[in-house]
């Protein structure tokens, strides 16, 4: 027989259980807007029944209800999916961010971009070609060239600044990962203690899940949970390698102080600096990665996505962009310099007195590695000082004028009269005839070779040709006085011919034509005959023909090259935008799935609350009823009135 008070006990259990259930509901409602909270469910369990013999057989009576456990409504499969997609989303968000910033730097298409500056640059050379003597046209070319050089400098600086900021983003990410790893390991300790005591530390589990979610922004992570008895072991892995294993954790390292050096492999930049595994906290902890092994280089299941990888890829992209700008700056500088060197300036001097138009602001050879061509491009100081030194004229534009051609040897001068429009060959021929056997000459193209002529000073003005029979090697470029075929008469050298001498041929001021400036303006449409030298980090100061076999880049024209560069950035940007949008949709959908399982629905909680409340009220009624019954028993029975 059960005790008289058996029914009261049942009601008391029910009251306690319903109260606990209302408490759980209250906890759920309180956390209704906490995104990382997992809805808790009170699990009612019927109490162990009471069995007693009665009337020859056993009777089993229920003992009411207990809360067996309070568990979290959580789907581990959706969690894993969410974290995978979340790391991809972070990756593409970073890519999108980087490409947006890059597009901000290139600022195309606009009226203040490199393309517009280049258009004006070429156009100004063309204007100079029409007005070679005009100092305003010269100053315009000079100033526009400064603008162009500064534009390259500025772009390069902006790219470097952006690189620095992504470097620090990577190192911030790495320290976040390390901090999260430590927090997870500490939570593991607390959770294990609670589990050993037999309880469900739901809120601690929530905090751990939230931390792993956070971690999935930085890297793709996988979670392995094993149960040994009541206690579970919790592992978090990146790229197959343990980051956290129970109470122990590994750390990552990134050293932004080291230059983010880029090596070039197959035409693509490869970062030398990667995020690597650092030390382990205890030797008995998680499986030890080899120190300095790149994170995620293992089985490829992680480390290839996430914001840190996104930022590392941004660094690679920026390095590639920097190189392209370096190439372009050097390509333009080399091309302009070469054409410029073929021309003559307002003083009749060749190629700005043999100086380059563009130079690089590099103070010492040790700095070559850190200063690219784009960062250091500048207009030659002597041209900045005097725009008349721009070699706009084509030496072939000169004309022999009427006057006297003379051959001076020592103090003796021989002369012949020259009429306008004569060719160099006829002038030389006349001189040669006047002084038989004085010298022999050959003319080939724009070059004239007199005896075994040598240059004595800087490239000569075309009027004056010095020669010396002692030298046997040099060809002289007589700046372009077009010789007429056929070849001159067979030379006859008198015994004891002149050792040295100077031939002067009257010619008009050739520096007034702008044909060479036009040649520079024509570079806009391509420079296939020209080739360039150098590697991106080591701009080679143009040193003439020796460097021409190794082009910086090949393209139909500089605008073609630039157009391809910009459209490449555009394609990347478009891809990043699309991928980011796709990932966002996926993550939103997974997040909804997760919320669908784990989220708090106020309607549901209210319904539950009413259920529990009514059950509580009913249980209380049972107590009242039992009280009535006991009252009947105690006060109504066995009393004689």
């Amino acid at each position, binding site marked *: 027989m059960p005790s008289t008070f058996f029914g009261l006990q049942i009601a008391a259990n029910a009251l306690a259980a319903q109260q606990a259930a209302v408490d759980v509901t209250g906890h759920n409602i309180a956390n*209704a*807007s906490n*995104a990382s909270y997992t*809805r808790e469910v009170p699990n009612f369990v019927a109490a162990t029944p009471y069995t007693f013999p009665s009337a020859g057989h056993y009777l089993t009576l229920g003992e009411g209800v207990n809360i067996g456990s309070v568990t979290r409504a959580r789907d581990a499969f959706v969690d894993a999916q969410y974290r995978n997609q979340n790391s991809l989303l972070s990756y593409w968000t970073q890519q999108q961010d980087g*490409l*947006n910033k890059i*597009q*901000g730097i*290139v600022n*195309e*298409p606009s009226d203040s971009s490199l*393309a517009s500056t280049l*258009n*004006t640059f*070429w*156009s100004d050379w*063309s*204007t100079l070609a029409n*007005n070679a*003597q*005009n100092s305003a046209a010269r100053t315009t070319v000079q100033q526009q060239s400064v603008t162009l050089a500064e534009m390259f400098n500025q772009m390069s600086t902006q790219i470097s600044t952006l690189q620095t900021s992504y470097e620090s983003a990577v190192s911030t990410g790495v320290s976040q990962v390390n901090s999260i790893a430590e927090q997870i390991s500490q939570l593991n300790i607390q959770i294990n203690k609670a589990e050993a005591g037999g309880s469900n530390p739901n809120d601690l589990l929530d905090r751990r899940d939230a931390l792993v979610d956070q971690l999935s922004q930085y890297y793709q992570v996988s979670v392995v949970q094993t149960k040994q008895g009541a206690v579970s072991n919790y592992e978090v892995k990146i790229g197959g390698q343990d980051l956290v294993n129970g109470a122990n954790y590994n750390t990552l390292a990134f050293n932004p102080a080291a230059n983010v050096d880029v090596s070039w492999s197959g035409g693509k930049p490869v970062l030398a600096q990667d995020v690597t595994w650092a030390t382990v906290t205890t030797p008995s902890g998680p499986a030890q990665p080899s120190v300095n092994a790149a994170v995620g280089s293992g089985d490829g299941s992680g480390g290839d996505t996430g914001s840190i990888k996104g930022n590392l890829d941004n660094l690679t992209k920026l390095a590639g962009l920097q190189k392209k700008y370096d190439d372009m700056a050097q390509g333009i500088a080399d091309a302009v310099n070469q054409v410029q060197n073929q021309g003559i300036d307002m003083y009749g001097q060749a190629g700005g007195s043999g100086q380059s138009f563009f130079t690089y602001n590099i103070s010492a050879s040790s700095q070559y590695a850190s200063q690219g061509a784009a960062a250091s491009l500048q207009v030659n100081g002597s041209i900045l000082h005097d725009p008349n030194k721009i070699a706009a004229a084509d030496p072939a*534009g*000169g*004309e022999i*004028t*009427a006057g006297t051609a003379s051959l001076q040897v020592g103090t003796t001068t021989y002369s012949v009269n020259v009429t*306008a*429009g004569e060719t160099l060959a006829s002038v030389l021929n006349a001189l040669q005839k006047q002084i038989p056997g004085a010298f022999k000459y050959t003319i080939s193209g724009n070059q004239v070779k007199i005896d075994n002529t040598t240059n004595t000073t800087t490239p000569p003005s075309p009027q004056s040709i010095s020669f010396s029979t002692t030298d046997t090697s040099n060809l002289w470029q007589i700046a372009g006085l077009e010789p007429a075929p056929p070849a001159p008469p067979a030379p006859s050298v008198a015994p004891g011919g002149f050792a040295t001498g100077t031939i002067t041929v009257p010619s*008009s*001021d050739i520096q*007034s*034509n702008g044909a060479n400036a*036009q040649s520079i*303006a*024509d570079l*806009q*449409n391509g420079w296939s005959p020209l080739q360039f030298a150098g590697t991106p980090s080591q701009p080679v100061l143009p040193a003439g023909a020796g460097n021409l076999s190794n082009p910086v880049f090949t393209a139909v024209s500089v*605008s073609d090259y*630039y*157009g*391809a560069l*910009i*459209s*490449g950035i*555009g394609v990347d*940007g*478009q891809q*990043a935008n699309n991928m980011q949008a796709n990932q966002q949709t996926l993550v939103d959908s997974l997040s*909804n799935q997760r*919320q*669908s*399982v784990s*989220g*708090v*629905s*106020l*309607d*549901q909680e*209210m319904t539950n609350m*009413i259920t529990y409340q009514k059950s509580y009220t009913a249980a209380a009624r049972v107590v009242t009823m039992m009280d009535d019954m006991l009252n009947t028993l105690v006060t109504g029975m066995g009393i004689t009135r």
Partner: protein
Amino acid sequence: MRITNIMMGQNLLSNLEAVQTTIQKYQNQLASGKKINQPADDPVGTQLTLGLKGALSDNSQWQGNASQGLSVLQTTNATLQNMMGMLQRARTLAVEVNNGTFTPADRATTADEVQQIQQEVGSLANTQVGDMYIFSGTSSSQPWQGAANWTGNAGLVNIAVGKGEQIPINADFTGLFQGTGSIFNVLSGFVSDLKSNNLSGLQNDLQNIDNQVQSFTAKEAELGALTDRVQTVQNNLQQSSTNLNQNLSTVQDADVATVITHLTNAQNVYQAALSVGARYIQPSLADYMK
């Protein structure tokens, strides 16, 4: 599917963000008037835009060159015509002085006038457009320095009017101004014949002046042809500039009507989303419980 409160909030928020992104895109297009505001908007279009802008910049430079060339050619034509007028006057004088009634004194007086004509032709021959002496070839110094002293050359000044296409904007004037057959020599000879009263010489001078008239006419015809050519090129350039501008506009300009329609649509969606959100986010069972 079980719907929870946070879900509803998240969904509403991401939908609102999506609509706002669209609105911002169209607002950008309207504000800039361009449908390509950064390379990612349309990579191919961006490359096209860069190419077209380059071509337009070339084109406007060539047009500028051509009009500069035209002004030089027109000035040259006008100056040559002035010189022709003076030659005609000299010819009239040459005919007159060959008249037997002219006294040596008359001829000496005429000599002064012819000298004056030579002076004027010379100063016309020094005409400049900008810094350029239009008759001196590629020489930059003043070509006529008095009497028969001519320092100009036969060089042609070329202007670029297309990719690799150059047109000279002057001609070889050395035949007119330089050497024994030059106008200055002819007029000098005329003057000295007048002064020395050399009648047979004066006959010759008339012939020489006639020859000069012919040379000048021939030069004028040459320059006229050149002017036509530059003008044709300029017209072509204008035409192609119009085409290029049209192409550029097709590639990069936003169609305002379309964009405004899209924008209005997006704004309607945004407002609908807001009002729906405000209605279904708010209530729960709690509102109806006592």
